[in-house]
Structures are given as structure tokens and as C-alpha cells.
């Protein structure tokens, strides 16, 4: 067991974990942060995307011990005081989700896309979301949501 100290959604945690524990399993099983999900085992689908020190990371491909000392934000940490994050609002308003399984990762990655490029073109949004798979929406409304969030300059 190895001791890790990780700040997740604004709360500092310190836990003993097996060295092989993936960050996503630490989040889900140790902290109950089940908003972040596992969709594959090859880093293709992006459903587990979180922010690691402010940048998007697929938490299935990071060991918890690698995140020691890091500041992690999950989908559960986006809304503040019951107020949805503008990107969450944009996904809702533009019907950018159906089953919603990819949505946490998709929203976290969308924020990263806009962090890199606050006024992207649609093609740039599509390229930026390439590592996140959705099987329900055909992506059209996801792209629309990200564009909407970018236009307002809110994200």
C-alpha cells in the first residue's frame, strides 16, 4: 500500500492505495466519486476524463500514485453552490446527451478544448473531442453545445 494525498473537487484526501490502483478506481471506489465512469480499457473512449491540475486527463490511464499531490476536478466538482457550470448548461440546453454515460468525460474534455482555444471553429471542436466517444448523439449537438459555451465566453 502506498499513501497518496490528492485534492478532489476541492476536498483534500489522504488514503492508502495499492500501487496499481488507477486514478479512476480511486475516485470511484475510495471516494465514491461515481460521476466519473469507465467505458473502455484502452484509453479510447474518454468517459473517465477528469481535470488533473487543470488539464484534461483520462483517469483510467493515470495511477492514483501518479496523482499524488495533484488537484483533481471531476464532473461532480463543476457545479458550484447548486449553480450549473455554463458547459453543463450548454449540454442541457442543446440536448448534447442521451444516455449520458459519456457526458461527464465529454464535458470535462470540452472545457479543456475551450481552455486551449476559447473561440474554436466547429472543426476544431470536433478534433478536440476526438478522444471521447459517444454512441448516442452523433456528436452534432455536443459540438453545438461547445460552440454555444464558447461564444458566450463563459467557459
Amino acid at each position, binding site marked *: 500500500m502506498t499513501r497518496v494525498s490528492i485534492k478532489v473537487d476541492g476536498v483534500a484526501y489522504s488514503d492508502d492505495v495499492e500501487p496499481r490502483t488507477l486514478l479512476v478506481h480511486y475516485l470511484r471506489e475510495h471516494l465514491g466519486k461515481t460521476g466519473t465512469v469507465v467505458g473502455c480499457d*484502452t484509453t*479510447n473512449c474518454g468517459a473517465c476524463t477528469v481535470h488533473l491540475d487543470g488539464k484534461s486527463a483520462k483517469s483510467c490511464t493515470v495511477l492514483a500514485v501518479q496523482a499524488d499531490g495533484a488537484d483533481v476536478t471531476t464532473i461532480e466538482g463543476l*457545479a458550484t453552490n447548486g449553480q450549473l457550470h455554463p458547459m453543463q448548461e450548454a449540454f442541457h440546453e442543446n440536448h448534447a446527451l*442521451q444516455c449520458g454515460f459519456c*457526458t*461527464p468525460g465529454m464535458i470535462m474534455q470540452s472545457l479543456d478544448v475551450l481552455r486551449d482555444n476559447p473561440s474554436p471553429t466547429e472543426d476544431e471542436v470536433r478534433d478536440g*473531442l476526438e478522444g471521447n466517444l459517444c*454512441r448516442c*448523439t*452523433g456528436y452534432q449537438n455536443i459540438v453545438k453545445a461547445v460552440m454555444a459555451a464558447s461564444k458566450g465566453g463563459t467557459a
Partner: protein
Amino acid sequence: MTVTEDRPTPEVGSSRRRKEDHRLITGRTRWTDNLQLPGMLHLAMVRSPLAHAKVVSVDTAAAKESPGVVAVVTGADIADVQGSLPNAWPITPDQKAPPHPSIATETVNFAGEIVACIVARTAREAKDAVELVDVEYDELPVVLDMAAAAVGGDLTHPDLGTNVSAHWVFDSAEAGTGGDVKAAIADSDIVIKRTYRQQRLIPAFMEPRSTVVDPTGEQVTMWSATQVPHILKLMLALTTGLSESKLRVIAPDVGGAFGGKLQVTPEELITLVVAQRVGKPCKYTETRSESLLTGHHGRDQIQRLTLSATADGTVTGLHVDLLADMGAYLGLVTSGVPVLGAFMFNSIYKFPAYRFECTNVFTNKNWTDAYRGAGRPEATYAIERLMDELAVEVGVDPLEIREKNWIKHEEFPFTSVAGLEYDSGNYEAATAKAKEMFGYDALRAEQKERRDRGDRVQLGLGISTFTEMCGLAPSRVLGSLSYGAGGWEHASIRMLPSGKVEVVTGSSGHGQGHETAWSQIVADRLGVPFDDVEVLHGDTQISPRGLDTYGSRSLTVGGMAVVAAADKVIEKAKPIAAHLLEANADDLEFVGGKFNVKGTDSSIGIGDLALAVFAAHNLPDGVEPSIDADATFDPENFSFPHGTHLCAAEVDTETGEVKVRKYTCVDDIGKVVNPLIVEGQVHGGLAQGIAQALWEEAVYDEYGTLVTGSFVDYLVPSAADLWNFEVDRTETPSTTNALGVKGVGEAGTIASTPAVVNAVVDAVRHFGINDIEMPCSPFRVWTAIQKASSGDATPTDKSVVDDNALPSHNQTTDNIDPVQTEGGSPA
């Protein structure tokens, strides 16, 4: 109270943002894999790496010693309870099917089949121990080629004595719905024979399947990532012998399914049985690799087609001879999938004679079953490809040949040659709208211009004017097709004393937006605010009756049950309202959520009435203190959505790369409850249908190993692969239900595949190419162009489908490429 006095617009028809979104965008979801119960144990499966072998021995000793392992369970250990997984659709009385144990006992019949189950304290410890189970196999010959398997050779299941599970026939002459197809073909000027391949696909829902079973307490509770909790409950009870009333199945939030979770899986049964054995809650969650390997696959047919027509292009006959690969077993509706397509090959066209036959074949591959569209995409693909061929033969535009043959809007209701009564439709209107949005004539002009100057990038236009049968299904029809259940749906409405309304539905949504759409329907029907309606579903204890969600049935059947229940609430409330208003019931009208005494200002809202009923202080004599109501709706007919889909694809003739430039579709799904949700369904459906045309294929190697066992190899499209679709609608209400609705869940998938492939073929037809096997990868397109350019065009290719090996319909199959891909098969 909750009655809205002056709601400005009806809810039905408005683009309400979805109720279910909030929990999904904040991570407040209840996926099955989230569940943690006290003392919960974790399962991992030991799976066969071989496609066909005798299981000589299973040595679990080392695994049992592994840290954290509580038990290791083999097929022999649960032989007394595991039974055989169900097939609910024996399509013929003599259908052959092997026993299907959840944990193999004597043989394994596809790579990935379970041979043992590890039970451990953590998921990681369970997975660690998988490697320690020593299974000795005795390899058997592997059967992979369905065409060869259909006529003999090695057997997938030697005990059956054949690889053929069933042969099913529909013949319009025998059914009295049309003429004799052989005579029609013999008498026709034009006879077009083609063989098309429907490649094997994987549903690839985003949430891997997961099951948790809590055996503590009097009733066993199962949570499962399923789209069919009611069917699952019944089938597990029947299979294991557990009393149906001792099992509660809950489908919590379910992350997509597309038919892929319309199943009773070995893993669900094993988790149930093992949890009961060890007496502790157990969880099994598959990895994505396991999901792709063993979650049921879809499609996988060889379609041998003959279409005949007069010289002017009027269709005279259609003969469809299918081979359908079942894989190793018959799942819940595996055998019925081709039959669902049987009624749709004739599509919107007035064929006077039609014959459909399919041969269901076993191979040593994962079993196939329902995948979005289930039978209808295959049928639509075949007929829409053939109509293009007919247009070429006659020398007219493909839209013209369709219009010449389709049912005119004034001809509805129309009984098709397959015996279905199409209640309504307007193919002219949808096509005209699509054509204009698409800029059809300008694109045709550009195509000609590029062709004339020999442009490296050629343009092709693809058309698909489709219909489908959806709203599965009238129970009588299902009975006539030997399906094991009915097609009704159930709903209950509970009028709470606070004025809130609970709607219980037997539909089991998993991304469709039922909570929103049902709320809209009930808000209008009962005149209550949208936000006051709570939709409950997916739990057999809360929703005891239901037949779940598949086949674009939820709104047309489940939504109608909700309407019927709401109408019963009003009916039950009326005498009570009359009593409270001291009026005659005949003098009351129910408008905007209130009972009014006609011609007076005396009224009572339904919410106030619900409170009065709850108190029950002042009810008419002999009236029960409840206005709650149940209803079960069984449709009398299917509904028949249709539409016109147009695709413009650019093909780089030097690289074979296909780039879709424009995709326009106009769907007619009748009345629309929520346009936003409808549009989303179409987008997602298109993406899956287009993916079949261009990218996706489940590939096995010569040993029967799935080589597309991860998202690295199985190419689910990303945002970067796709583009924006132009989506619009026409509205011809269905007359088969009071809402006037049709289904939309599968339309995009059904229509889009042939539109794209027609576009690709159209772009390169001048090379002499009339088919490119799906998925139309750059390699395949490039190869087709190379062969054609070297004078070795596809029409003269020797097919891998040995004509002499075919069980029937022995004719030239002149356009099929060898069944192999660039990534998979050996030379």
C-alpha cells in the same frame, strides 16, 4: 393547487429540455457499477481463448488459493440450476438450437465463452485469479464461413447433425398477398441479381454491462444494465427455477443499448446464481474487451437478391434468399432478426410478387441478435441498393425509378406484398423537401462536370427512400410469427394528494428521454404542469408489468398506454367531480385540468379532486377512494415511419478515401412529442448507420479469434469522423394510434447505410463498379477502382461465396468481394 389556469401552449410538440439531464450532467447518476453493498463480492470470468473445443478439465485449485478469492465456480458446480439460456423466438417448429449453458460444461463454441467464474473480495483480486484457472481443451474444427457451413462440412454443434438452425419462408403466392415470384422473374425484361454482404457489427453501447445481485432478504434483487428488466426477470425465473415473485430486477441508469442490452446474458444468470450460493451481494462488470467479445453482435448476413422489372423499370418481382449467421447460440431473439426484415425488403414499392427465405446458420462465433433496426436495416440496404441498380439498367435517375414504383400518397392505406397494411405516408412530400434542401440538381450537374473532366475526386449521390415497421408489436402478429411473448405495454398513473402525478411506465428508457416525453403527454392530457409529473420506470417492483424498450416501440406502444391510463383517470374522476360540484356528470367537461359544469363558472381542478379523493370524506356512494388508473395498450398495427435520405460523397480515386460532403434527410415520423429529442435520435441513428457503411466491422481471424476486440480496432466514429447532418421532417400522422406518432429510434440507422454506399458506388460507377463491400474503407474503394481500371471489374470477380455451395437459389453471385478485410484474414 397544481392546475394551470392558462397554460399558453401545449406541451406535446414543444422542445422541452430533458428532465433526465440534470443528474447526467452533474455525475449524480446511478449506473449499476456504482453500487457498493455491505459484504459485496466481485466476479470475474474465465473465458475460452478457443473458438471450438472440448473442455477436458477445469483445474481451479491454484485460483482458489489466490488472495481474496472466496470461490471458483465451474459449469459443473451450477449444472443443477443454470439451465439453458432462453431463445424466445423459435421461428419454425423444427428450429434447431443447442443447449446454452451460462458456464460451459462440455464444449466451448466461441472464443470468449465462459468456463469458470471467480468470486473474490475485490474486482482486482478476482481478475488476478482468472489467470490461475487451468483449463485443458481438446480442440475441435472451427466453423466460421456461414455459406460453407450452410451446406455441410464441419459442424458447429455435432449433436445437431447440421449447421442449419432453421429455414423460414414467406411467399406472396402462398400467402395470397401477391403473385408467384418465379413466374414474375421469368416473364420480365429486366432481371437483376446481386449478392450483398451485411458485415458483422457490434452495438458498442458506451456503458459496459454490469450486474449486481443482492440475495439477502426474502426477495433477491438484481440491478442490471439492461434494456429489458421485465423480460429479464421472467426469463431468469423460468431458466433457474427461482420463483418469479422472489426476484426483483432493477434497470437503474443504463448507458445506451441499441439492442445490445436486449438479452438474458450468461453473466446475469451467473451473478444471480453465485450470489444465492455465497449468500452475499455480488457484482460483475465487464471490461470493454469482454463487451466487444461477448456482448451479442449484430447483422452478419449474406443477401442473395433477384429483382425483376419491365423494360420501363416497373418492378415485377423480388426474391430474397438470405443466409444469416447466428453465431454459436440462439440468444433471446437471434433467430427472429432476419424474420423482422422479411416484411421490409419490398419497402415502399409496389412489387406484385415477392418471396423471402432465410437460412439461419450456426458458426463458432459470438452469437448475433438485435442491433438497432434488427432486420430492417438489412432489408432497406438491399432494396435501396437494388433500386439504384435498376435505375442504371433502365437508364434513368435513381429518384425517378423510385417514384415510378413507390406507393402514391393517395393510395394509402396500402396492403403490401408482404401482407402489412401501411396506414399512411407521403413519400412524394418527403422526397421533394429533401431534394430541395440537398440541392440535388446542382449536385448532379457538378457530378457530371467532374466526371467529364476526369477529376481525381469524383462525386456520388446516394439515395435511400425507406420505410420501416415499428412499434413492436401487435401481440397477434407476434403470435403468428411464433414469438414467445406479446407486444403490449403497460402504464399506471397515480394521482398524489399533493397534486403531483406519478406515471409508471413499462417502457424502460436508457437514453431516449422517456421521462421528458411522458411528462409532456401527461401534462397535456391531465392539464397538470410538466414539472409536477414524475416518471417511474425500470424496476419490476415499481413497474410490475411491462415489455420494455426496443424496436422503436416506446412511444407508439408505451406512450399510448400512458394516454389510456390518463383517460381512465379522467373517467374515474368524473363522477366524483360531479358529486363535489353537485352537478350531473353529463354536464361536465374536462378542459385544461379542470372539470367544468358546462355553461357555469363552477369547476374543480384535478389536483383538488385528488386531495378530496385522498381524504375520502365526501365521495359518492359505492365509489372507491382512488382515481389512480392502469392501462395496457396493445397496438392493432405497426406504424410505418418513412423518409428520404440523400448523401453526397466525394471519393478520391487515387487513395480510395471517402468524404461525405453533405447528408440531408427528411423523415416522416408522424406527430412529434418533442422535436429536440427526435432530432437527437435521428442524429445518433445516422451516425450508427453511416458507421456501418464506412467504418465498423467485427472481424474474426481464421482461428475464430475476434481481432476487433477493442476500440482501437472496432472503429466507432468520433466527433472528428462525422459532420453536421441536415435534418428535417414532414408530418403524416399515423392512423394506428391516437397520438398519431410513429417511431424514430431506429430510422436514422435503417435509412443511412444504403444512402452512403449508394453515394460511394455512384461516385465510381463509371469505372464499371456496381458494389463495394461494407465498410467502404479506403482500401476497399481503392482496390475496387484498381481492379476495375485493370479490366478486372467486380462484375467478373470470382466470389468467395461458392455458387455451387449455396443451398438454394443457385445463380451467379457476381458482385461480392472475398469476405476478408485489410486488417484481418490471412492470404
